[in-house]
């Protein structure tokens, strides 16, 4: 009996092997039969979205399904010229109507509907906003509904359970097809549109949502997969194979269907840059966003376009490490500031980035009334001149050494015998910050003559914020984990995270002058723009005076589009992007 069993087992295995071998061969012949008439947009993402609950999902990959599959009250659309953009009503019937200083009416489209045909009306929107702000659900994106571009009256207070009831919140139903928004401040019409054009302000499908709500009303499984979710946008989410592929097909019933040209959007999830380049080289992608390492290959390619992003990347400095005797002094922070060769770091270590010895990015202020960015303005230039007067982008090894000596003296240490170890904590998964740490480690041996040296420590399995919470003695430097981009309208907002009032502060150094100045900027933000720029410069000056954290480079993004792709824009439009969702393809 045993003999037969073994023989049978062997035979089965052989069969499987042969099957597999045959499979491989025949696989070659059955390559994709191309549906010629279909316009398919092939693209890729580095990561998949975790779920489709846009009110709770904080990760940017969830932008994609929201853009393709949801309707908004308003959406942005490029001008004829392709150089600018404006807002068009989507689920709204027309642009918001101002009733008084703080009150806006939003008339709704009568033919808006879910993919299953159910109507989308004032009740849908009210229910959606109410859910987003629900204090029991504690949706993580709820705060953005209450306060982002505009601040809705009492919404924050309702959400945090601080007394306001739903009746107090400035979101009201006027009739079946009109809702009313009451804001705290005076706003422009486009601010209202802008506020409602983001994923957490898309509608949710009530019957399904209520089904998915847990009994105690604290959790929901809405959006966890396609069966627990309903779309209402230009495309249907037909396939979602998590971490692998997303396929969207055109929804012909959508009321603005004419604006969208793709028959299908095929998005692969490809975490490895190498694989993305491979796909691009094989012509299997319509666009590619090379990272700093791969952009070298395409640097001469006429298709390559670059644009500054909203972020200045920086290093957080710990001022409370008990093992570092000089960490509490301003001189130490300045020594660190002047020791960074930002030009080399940005151009070579991070690769093709813009060095920055300051913190307000080049985009800040671009969408202000005059369109003047802070960095191009006179006050902004003054700060740049100040920084460059110390050395290129603030890099000056001699000053670094002087400040180090000063820091030692202030802490009663003899700089000639000092031997201070600086813990540079990096995430194992970030190769560029690793390279930066290794570069600095080497540089410092010359700059601080061995009296202050870097020791690189790595952590895995947690975010930088988590790591910092493990103890003040565990780190001195850490790459930024939460970049706060300055808003394109109000340049000073990038300093938001570095105030003591902000609960999740990424660092532990606070300065009263700085906070006063920030509050002052906040109080005059709707006033004269030039005054605001001037005050922002003062804020940045204080920031540099105390090196609240250490700026390194202005982030630059790169993109390439295939020749077949017809973009609706002439160039990258800040605040709008490339508009690939409205793009077309030459077939």
């Amino acid at each position, binding site marked *: 009996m045993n003999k037969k069993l073994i023989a049978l087992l062997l035979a089965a295995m052989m069969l499987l092997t042969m099957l597999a071998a045959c499979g491989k061969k025949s696989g070659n012949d059955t390559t994709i039969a191309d549906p010629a008439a279909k316009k398919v947009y092939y693209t890729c993402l580095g990561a998949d979205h975790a779920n489709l609950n846009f009110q709770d999902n904080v990760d940017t990959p969830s932008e994609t399904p929201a853009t393709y599959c949801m309707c908004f009250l308003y959406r942005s659309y490029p001008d004829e010229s392709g150089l600018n953009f404006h807002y068009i009503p989507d689920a709204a019937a027309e642009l918001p109507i101002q009733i008084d200083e703080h009150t806006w009416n939003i008339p709704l489209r009568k033919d808006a509907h879910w993919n299953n045909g159910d109507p989308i009306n004032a009740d849908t929107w009210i229910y959606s906003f109410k859910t987003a702000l629900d204090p029991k659900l504690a949706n993580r994106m709820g705060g953005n509904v209450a306060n982002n571009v505009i601040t809705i009256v009492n919404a924050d207070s309702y959400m945090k359970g601080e007394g306001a009831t739903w009746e107090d919140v400035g979101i009201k139903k006027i009739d079946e097809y009109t809702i009313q928004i009451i804001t705290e401040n005076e706003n422009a019409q486009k601010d209202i549109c802008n506020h409602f054009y983001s994923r957490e302000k898309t509608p949710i499908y009530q019957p399904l949502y209520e089904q998915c709500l847990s009994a105690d009303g604290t959790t929901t499984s809405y959006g966890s997969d396609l069966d627990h979710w309903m779309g209402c946008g230009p495309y249907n989410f037909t396939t979602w194979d998590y971490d692998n592929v997303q396929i969207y097909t055109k929804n012909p019933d959508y009321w603005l269907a004419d604006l969208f040209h793709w028959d299908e959007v095929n998005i692969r999830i490809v975490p490895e840059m190498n694989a993305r380049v491979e796909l691009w080289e094989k012509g299997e992608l319509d666009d590619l966003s090379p990272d700093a*390492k791969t952009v070298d290959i395409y640097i001469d390619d006429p298709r390559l376009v670059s644009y500054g992003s909203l972020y200045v990347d920086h290093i957080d400095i710990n001022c409370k490490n008990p093992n570092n005797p000089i960490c509490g002094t301003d001189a130490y922070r300045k020594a660190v500031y002047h020791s960074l060769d930002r030009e080399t770091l940005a151009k070579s*270590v991070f690769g093709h980035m813009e060095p920055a010895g300051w913190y307000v990015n080049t985009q800040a202020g671009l969408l202000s009334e005059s369109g003047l960015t802070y960095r191009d303005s006179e006050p902004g230039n003054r700060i740049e001149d100040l920084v460059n007067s110390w050395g290129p982008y603030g890099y000056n090894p001699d000053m670094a050494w002087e400040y180090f000596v000063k820091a030692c003296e202030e802490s009663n240490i003899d700089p000639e015998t000092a031997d201070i170890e600086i813990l540079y904590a990096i995430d194992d998964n970030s190769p560029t910050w690793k390279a930066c740490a290794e570069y600095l480690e080497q540089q410092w041996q010359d700059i601080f003559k061995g009296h202050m040296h870097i020791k690189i420590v*790595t952590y895995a399995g947690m975010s930088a914020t988590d790591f910092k919470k493990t103890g003040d003695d565990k780190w001195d430097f850490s790459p930024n984990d939460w970049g706060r981009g300055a808003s394109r309208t109000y340049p000073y907002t990038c300093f938001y995270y570095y105030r003591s009032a902000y609960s999740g502060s990424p660092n532990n150094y606070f300065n009263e002058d700085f906070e006063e100045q920030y509050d002052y900027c906040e109080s005059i933000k709707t006033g004269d723009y030039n005054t605001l720029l001037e005050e922002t410069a003062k804020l940045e000056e204080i920031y540099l005076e105390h090196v609240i954290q250490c700026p390194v480079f202005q982030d630059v993004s790169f993109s390439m589009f295939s*020749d077949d792709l017809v973009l609706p824009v002439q160039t990258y439009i800040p605040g709008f992007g490339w508009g690939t969702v409205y793009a077309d393809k030459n077939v």
Partner: protein
Amino acid sequence: MIYDRNNLPEELLNLPASDFEALYQEDIKDEKFQTKPVGFFKDAAIRLTKSKVSIIAFIIIGIIIILAVVVPPLSPYGFNDQNISAKYLPPKMPIVEKLGIMDGTRVLKNRKVSGLSDTDRYPEGSIIEYFNVVTAKGQEMCDVRVDAYMLAGMPDGEYHWFGTDYLGRDLLTRLFKGARISLLIAFFSVLTNVFIGVVYGAISGYYGGKVDIILTHFAEVLDGMPYIVVTILFMILFGSGMVSIILALTITGWIGTSRLIRAQFYRFKGREYVLAARTLGVPDRTLIFRHILPNCVGPLITRAMIAIPGAIFSESFLAYLGLGIKPPNPSIGVLLSDGQSVLLQYPYQTVFPAILISVLMIAFNLFSNGLRDALDPTKRGEE
């Protein structure tokens, strides 16, 4: 004539000794051994040296160890000497460069033809040839073969045999520094494993009974945990670094050794010589380490040798998952995983560490195979 044995004639009974004479004059002792007695290790060594493969493997291991010791201090570049303008240089080796490989050139794809004359970007003489000219979007594009060393502004006579990495560090130096670290991790983890295994196995095997049952069951339960799972958990908890890698590899690594030692102890503890020693009042410690343990040395060495490539593999495996040793120190695994991320642009970054780890693993495997055969007591005295 036949004599009765008991009634021999007088003259025959009282023969004088002088009547007898030795037939041979020389000594009639047995012939002396022509060879010296061969001890266990000598025998093993003889058999090991008879196997050509083992010798070659041994030589290769030796060379790599020597290089790992010698290259980092003797190289003109330190393992952490950076030259950021010379990052990602291709390999360039004297003599070999004449053959057209490892000559420090690289093909840059998709460059503007019009840009080639820009001497700021391409210093004079750095362009060797350009080809594949195509026109795209009104631009003439081509592929250029350039002398990467000239392009980076390196002086003549600068040679990075294996090229440089993302900070312009010499890869040859880093590779052998990395090999040194990987080997150290391997040796120390195996050493720790052997130590724990020997103590655990000896206690378990020598005392037997309840102690043995408890210890064996504990080891069995521990052994059921997949080492990958345990290692990853350990690394997450204690963070990356050389010491934690060594410890992580030790958690379940010692079980095999302890099992082997236990079996050996069971075999030898009942032997007469052990009983004799015990009767003479020799303490347990001496019995274990002086009298029984030496019997296990052969299999122990084999086992340790086999475990070394395993440890080297585990180290690079962990580095691939992002749990390697701390920068700026290199290890073979760290170099491999760094290279993997730029595999398409700079394949040589992966090639050299890959070759080194492969050769090292093959050599260790061949050598430990040879060693196993040589130390196998059943084959003793063969041939």
